[in-house]
């Protein structure tokens, strides 16, 4: 039997990796992947909490998280395609029309 703490630990580590990825990486697609990683990390702890408490609310929330993640990925990819058509780049450090 694996304890709740281990699940939460894995989830926290994955979440931090996701956050660091969003902050550090330059490619917009990789940034999206890191956002998805954050959401998946949350799913792990949700399911772990849900299972340890024997309560289904957490699991239902996981469904919504998955769906929202898909919708966000769609809109995000569409935006990247649009920006690629305008700029021919997916490098967010080159997207610098707006400052201060």
């Amino acid at each position, binding site marked *: 039997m694996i304890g709740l703490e281990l699940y939460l630990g894995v989830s926290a580590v994955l979440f931090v990796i996701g956050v660091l990825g969003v902050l550090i990486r330059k490619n917009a697609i990789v940034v999206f992947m890191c956002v998805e990683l954050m959401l998946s990390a949350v799913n792990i702890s949700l399911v772990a909490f849900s299972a340890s408490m024997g309560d289904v609310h957490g699991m239902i929330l996981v*469904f919504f998280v998955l769906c929202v993640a898909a919708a966000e*990925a*769609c809109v995000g*990819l569409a935006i990247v395609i649009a920006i690629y058509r305008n700029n021919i780049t997916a490098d967010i450090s080159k997207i610098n029309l707006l400052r201060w």
Partner: protein
Amino acid sequence: MLEAYLPIFVLLGIALFLAIVLAILSRVIGPYRPSATKLRPYESGMDPVGDAKERYSISFYMVAMEFIVFDLEIIFIYPWAVRYKELGLGTFFAVMVFILILTLGLIYTLKKESKNFQISKSTN
């Protein structure tokens, strides 16, 4: 303990036997007339010759995105489907409304994307 899995092993055995027999039978009985197109490796209907890094039509990405969205919506239908009888008529109609909304979205994308689908059809 292992005896409980016996039927599965039997099933595996039958499946393996049938597959081999059918493969041999088709080779022996079936006609064999090779052509250039038939011998080429199959790659989702695309021409496999040339640089793998060529630019794909944007419509592939559109279809992929639509697939992600419609594919994931099914997780809301699963829980209802397993407890279908217990949940009663009200939930049935609720799920039907949900599916109706999804269908409307599908019709919209088909209407909007019809041009893109046409392009990918004509290139094949």
